[in-house]
């Protein structure tokens, strides 16, 4: 394949010197054998398949075709086992700390008492819900489903851009992408050691059932309705789990319990996986004008007669100002060193940092703390003088509501452009989906979003963004021939069985098998780093160490004085990862 990686950004597939990274060798060979014409033909088949299946998101304010397919690029993003192990450990640590934080602030708030996080910051967050203070949530779980946004900077270090703790969406695209890829490019997977993702919905159902207040409780998915931008996902998850997809009008509260209306009368509901924002859940507690919610739901929730996932009030922990303190939460609750770093963040709330923000606005990205979807943002390096001035007015008026971050140049990935028939670099991010129950389960994969508009750093689908299939390998590459790989990996037999099962159609494999296999694969890969792979993984982890050392100070918001001059990425592009349809369903709820 012809491709020019460039050297300004980290390229996922090629090294600076232009050599393919070992874990991408299989993909490169496959594309080389296929040829561009065949690759293109199948690309069209993919489009058609998505269109016919109605795998779409809703574009608001567009009269005719309100549903669009999510553009899909068939060059997969590949993550080797060693890198994934690092991400898995880092994300697990992070969601555990966030969950501990939420438990804490909705009860004794010790972390605030100990002065680790300023209490003012927490209590002034728009997403702090005093209505649920003191509620005993089932199993102590607040954030059942998390979709963390990761980016890679110029050095290839993974950074957390955002923790999405309310109702992160996009997982259906992850699953649909894999299904489409295995159907249309089956050959690309052969002998690659790609770990399956299809057990997500089974694991999700098990998690939801585990928080039910009653034995064998009834689980439902609550959607704002079919005009919501993420409706496809709501329906898809309900279908795959075999539970009812309900709207607010299907539910009612009576005798201290939640019921759904059926043709056979009422039926009690025990667990609600809600894809409706807090504000709209219960008109008696939150917005009285909400037609999407269920009157009286919060009271039943308070009594512990219904479980809600994610819990009410989780949004306080993904407030962009609170985000800056997640590394401190990890140290405070877990007594561990954070494995994944934040993007350095200045808080308008802190007068010293505010001063720095105002003085260096031209080099920074500003964000409103409660917003998502790229709203309320300012890209310093690209804004006009007037835009900056107008924006800073707002910042000065209400500094708590703003943060600023240095510009980070997102990593790039080879992407097929049908118009030129060429592979060109495009910026990507990564959103893995984390299920946080008694154990933390992360399906090996994620949604890789790609900024398809040339040169664009916006991966948002409304801005011409698309997605890619994301492969997590059970080795660090290169892929060995099938037979070899089986010998190499010990129980290769089981591996290939699982593999073929998932190729037949995901969701068909029983959880027990898929998961134990997954875990097997995991431990395998970690103990398997022998021979040539060893070097690779060592250099890999050395790089992390170095970057972490560099970045150690970033864990806490830097002092205003600490010059970010030497921060990598300072002079390059910004990443803005706007996300409307992926950021959560709240905006959509408002639009209705």
């Amino acid at each position, binding site marked *: 394949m012809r491709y020019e990686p460039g050297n300004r950004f980290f390229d996922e597939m090629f090294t600076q010197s232009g050599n393919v990274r070992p874990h991408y060798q299989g993909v490169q060979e496959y594309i080389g054998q296929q040829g561009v014409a065949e690759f293109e033909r199948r690309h069209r088949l993919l489009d058609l398949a998505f*269109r*016919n*299946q*109605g795998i779409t998101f809703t574009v608001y304010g567009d009269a*005719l075709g309100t549903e669009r397919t999510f553009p899909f690029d068939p060059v997969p993003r590949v993550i080797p086992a060693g890198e994934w192990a690092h991400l898995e450990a880092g994300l697990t640590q992070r969601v555990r700390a966030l969950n501990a934080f939420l438990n804490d602030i909705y009860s004794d708030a010790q972390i605030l008492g100990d002065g680790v996080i300023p209490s003012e910051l927490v209590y002034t967050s728009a997403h702090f819900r005093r209505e649920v203070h003191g509620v005993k949530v089932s199993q102590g779980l607040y954030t059942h489903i998390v979709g963390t946004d990761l980016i890679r900077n110029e050095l290839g270090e993974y950074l957390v851009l955002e923790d999405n703790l309310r109702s992160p969406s996009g997982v259906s695209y992850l699953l649909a992408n894999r299904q489409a890829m295995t159907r249309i490019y089956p050959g690309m997977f052969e002998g690659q050691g790609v770990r399956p993702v299809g057990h997500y919905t089974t694991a999700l159902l098990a998690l939801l059932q585990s928080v039910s207040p009653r034995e064998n409780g009834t689980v439902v*998915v609550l959607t704002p309705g*079919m005009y919501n931008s993420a*409706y*496809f996902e*709501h*329906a*898809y998850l*309900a*279908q795959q789990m075999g539970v*009812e*997809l*309900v*709207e607010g*009008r*299907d539910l*009612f509260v009576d005798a201290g319990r939640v019921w*759904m*209306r*059926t*043709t*056979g*009368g*009422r*039926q009690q509901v025990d667990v609600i996986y809600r894809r409706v924002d807090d504000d709209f859940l219960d008109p008696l507690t939150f917005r009285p004008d909400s037609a999407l919610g269920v009157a009286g739901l919060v009271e039943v929730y308070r009594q512990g007669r219904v479980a809600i996932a994610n819990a009410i009030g989780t949004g306080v922990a993904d407030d962009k100002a609170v985000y800056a303190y997640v590394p401190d939460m990890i140290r405070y609750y877990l007594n561990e060193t954070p494995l994944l770093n934040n993007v350095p963040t200045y808080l308008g709330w802190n007068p010293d940092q505010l001063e720095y923000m105002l003085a260096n606005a031209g080099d920074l990205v500003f964000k409103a703390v409660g917003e998502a979807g790229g709203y309320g943002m300012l890209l310093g390096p690209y804004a006009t003088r007037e835009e900056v001035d107008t924006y800073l007015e707002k910042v000065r008026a209400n500094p708590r509501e703003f943060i600023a971050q240095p510009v980070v140049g997102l990593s790039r990935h080879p992407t097929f452009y049908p118009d030129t028939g060429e592979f060109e670099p495009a910026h990507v991010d990564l959103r893995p989906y984390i299920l946080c129950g008694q154990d933390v389960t992360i399906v090996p994969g994620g949604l890789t979003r790609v900024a398809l508009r040339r040169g664009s750093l916006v991966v948002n689908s409304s801005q011409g963004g698309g997605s890619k299939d994301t492969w997590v390998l059970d080795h660090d590459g290169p892929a060995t021939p099938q037979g070899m790989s089986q010998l190499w990996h010990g129980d290769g037999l089981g591996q290939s069985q699982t593999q073929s099962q998932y190729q037949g159609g995901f969701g068909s494999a029983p959880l027990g098998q898929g998961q134990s296999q997954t875990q097997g694969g995991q431990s395998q890969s970690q103990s398997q780093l022998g021979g040539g792979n060893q070097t690779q993984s060592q250099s890999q982890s050395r790089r992390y160490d170095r970057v972490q050392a560099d970045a150690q100070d970033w864990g806490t918001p830097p002092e205003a004085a600490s010059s970010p001059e030497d921060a990598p990425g300072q002079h390059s592009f910004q990443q803005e990862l706007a996300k409307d349809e992926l950021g959560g369903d709240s905006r959509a709820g408002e639009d209705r």
Partner: protein
Amino acid sequence: MLLLSRLAENLFWIGRYVERAENTARLLNVNYSASLEMAGRARESWRPLLELTGGEAQLRAKYGRVDARSISAWLAFDRDNPSSIASSVLHARENARGLRDRIPSEMWEALNRTYLNVCFQDEAVLARDGLFEYCVEARDAAQFFFGIAFATLPRDEGWSFMRAGQMLERGDNMLRVLQSRHRSVDTQALADPKQRALQDLRWVSVLKGASAYEAYRKRVHVGIDPIRIGEFLLLDEFFPRSVRYSAENLHDALAQIDRWHPGAHPEVLRLARWLVARLQYARVADILDEDNPALEELLGDFNRVGAAIDAAFFQQE
């Protein structure tokens, strides 16, 4: 096994809308083909179709003329016409979207493909002589959809609601066709052989509009006789688009629903049984000559069953 009221309603209406799309496509296609050979009489041959679906005033206001072309566009593509093919498919698909987690993906995909193919067309189809293909596509899509349902949809309550919707729509539609055709029979003209031939052709169209022409020929050997055609389409025991057959199947679907919650809604079943009884015991002359019961009355009976279903299952707390 339980079924959300909202989903039961969606299934019921999906049955109605897909059936409606098919019926309209069939009628339009037959009428269009027939009218090609009757130059100058377009108005006469199109009027009953318009009476049957309604909306003449709107049509006139929008197109400024009532002719073969405007009526075709109105019935096929016009989303302002709630019973056009495009509207029916659109509504069916909206209902299916609400059921995506409930119905097999294949059913959804079939309907979604149809939507993409038939709901974004306009008069350009007429300009390129594409109405025939358009109607055939819509008809085939409906049959394909019900075929998938037949093969893959579990026979639970949901199936029965869809079936009830389909059968109610079919019986209702057949009655309307007979009503409009019956009204336009010109007994005076029958003496004139030329007029007679024309009338016969119209009745053949009625049969073809219900895919009943071949079945009628096999069953009734006296030829094109309006009374026998009426009898066949109203009361035939075996033809699956006759009013009687539709009513019987509507009743059966409702009886199946009743089995999920026995005796909960006696009124629904009572009305359905009453309708079936009328169609089983009435003679064709009673209906067409004596108006006992009149076509309007039978139509009213169908609608009462529909209203009872709505009240019993969709509106309850």
